[in-house]
């Protein structure tokens, strides 16, 4: 998963980034002003955007409006210091998906962020299941046939994204987009390393194969009977 933080207060942005990266294991990009934020949001695929309202250059509201006008459906969680009903309603009507007022609880922020992401991908709970494979976004654990499977953080992120996409075929480019933040050099061959690592751990012992390669298209996690 990859998240964009648009927040002019550097310290706050960095704290949130640290929290998201450490606790949820998402890739994070930070923009310190509205224009930067809009540019990043338009040119990258994010799973969610954390948006402050009082921003230099371009206000959070204007950013949100431009984003929605361009047809971007990325879930947006607004961080606001204003706490009145009217502006909250206005925000939600302008296309925000959720809001949190400052000062917020980091745990709540993370929980809301994760809920936003999974719901936008069509999951009602943080537990994704494909056949007998289970992934828990909260505890960041993977189980097959009830037994915990030990995966590396990067392998987890690959699997989390594949399973979140609900048995859809995910291209390598898309996968890379959602795994790494802006500053990473993107090499598609690292993906193959993670995928083969996952296969070794999940599709082992002659268990039915769940991770499939669709030639020329990408990868998909899918139950064997389908």
């Amino acid at each position: 998963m990859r998240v964009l933080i648009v927040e002019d207060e550097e310290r706050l942005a960095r704290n949130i980034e640290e929290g998201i990266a450490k606790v949820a294991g998402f890739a994070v990009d930070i923009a310190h002003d509205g224009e930067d934020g809009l540019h990043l949001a338009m040119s990258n695929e994010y799973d969610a955007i954390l948006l402050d309202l009082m921003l230099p250059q371009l206000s959070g509201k204007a950013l949100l409006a431009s984003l929605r006008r361009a047809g971007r459906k990325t879930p947006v969680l607004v961080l606001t210091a204003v706490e009145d009903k009217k502006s909250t309603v206005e925000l939600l009507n302008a296309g925000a998906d959720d809001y949190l007022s400052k000062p917020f609880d980091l745990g709540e922020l993370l929980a809301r962020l994760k809920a936003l992401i999974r719901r936008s991908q069509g999951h009602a709970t943080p537990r994704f299941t494909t056949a007998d494979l289970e992934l828990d976004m909260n505890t960041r654990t993977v189980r097959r046939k009830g037994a915990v499977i030990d995966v590396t953080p990067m392998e987890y992120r690959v699997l989390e994204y594949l399973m979140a996409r609900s048995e859809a075929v995910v291209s390598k480019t898309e996968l890379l987009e959602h795994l790494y933040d802006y500053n990473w050099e993107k090499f598609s061959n690292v993906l193959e390393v993670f995928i083969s690592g996952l296969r070794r751990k999940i599709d082992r012992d002659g268990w039915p194969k769940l991770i499939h390669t669709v030639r020329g298209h990408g990868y998909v996690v899918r139950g064997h009977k389908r």
Partner: protein
Amino acid sequence: MKQTSIRRRILIWFLLLQGVVAVCALFGGLLYARRQQLKAFDAELRGRMSTVLSQIENQNGQLSLSNPDVVPSGHLFLVRSSGGKIIAPNGPKDIISDSALHRPDSFTYQGKHYRGAVWRSIPLPEEELEKQDASATVDIFYAMPTALLDSRFRELIIAAATVIVAFLILSALMTWWAIAKGLAPLNDLAERASEMDADSWRFEVPAQATATTELAPLGNALTQLITRLKAAFDRERRFVSDAGHELKTAVAIQKSTLQLLERGVLSVSAYKQGIERALEDTNRTEKLVTSMLRLASSESGRTSQSVSVLIDSLTAAVADLSTMAEKLDVRIVVNNDHLQSHVIGDVDELAMVWRNVLENALQHSPAEGEVRVDVQSARGGVLDVCIADAGPGIAAEDLPHIFERFYRADHSRARKTGGFGLGLAIAKSLVERNRGSIEMRTTLGRGACVVVRLTIAAPKISVNGSVH
């Protein structure tokens, strides 16, 4: 406090004045009527006397009244020859007292009021004189009862008074109604004004009030007052909102820093680092709170009257900022001209002004740059203290807002340097408190200059004689 009504007051005054005028008119009119009445009465008296005179006969030197019936009953009369002999009437002669003769205008006889007149030494008609060489003249006294006259006069008084009272009542009613009608635009205005509150500042002077000469100034004054109030209110509201935003952000940072520490087991060094960060965040919050309180106190205080030497406050500020200047690799150059001048301004408050302005200039200076402080005397007994940096200057759209609270021209930079956009606002309110003014001059790309204008003061001689 007892409430008074303009309407009632106008009415009372109006009635009072009208009453006075009416009473004066009534009095004058009655006086005139009475005089006319008496004039007519007196004319009749004279007529009666002439009739009596014409009835006097001379028979062998004996004067007598030929036909006493010409005098109606109830009238009193007396004819006396110049010798003192009473000629007529023939009845008892003591009926008329001497006082009646002496003051015939008004007297009482047998319980009745009379008005009479006396003709003295009237020559007899010529044909009577020729007959006999009798005494040539007579005195005639004649009086008529005034009862009828008086009762008519009383009726007149009652009629006039009734008319006037009726007129006053009618006039009061009409005035009451007219005042209400005249005050209607005022009521409209009041009603329109009462519809306003802190949330709805829409105020339009009703057309009727604008068209009323007496109300137009009030309407204008109200409109202006409301515009000013609204601006002040909006400014305060924005300040509260901005202050709230800043405070919440500061707290959000602190909270998130601590919550990060709370999650997971960290190494000792990571904890230490976290605590350091939390401390940094706390310092930042403290700085914000201090600045806000300082701004509040500088805006609420009275204008200062103290006098200080410019160099005292300037050196204090420059010394305070030397570390920051060193860190940023910027030199502060102070020109020595006019530094010994006495200016109006509290030394501590001026030092705070220089500190804030210098801090701002330092933050906008490029490394290895210079912040120059120049003092020039200007016309009108003022000094211009110019603090100039060689930074990027200020964009035209930012210039009018540069002294506003929480305004940050270069947002991202201000964030990095830990500024809240309060420094220049504090400087402005402090300068104005010390009867000075402050402005920003800038050329984009060639730096900016804050000019603080202070009033030159005569040096104050302290008690021990030294110049202070």
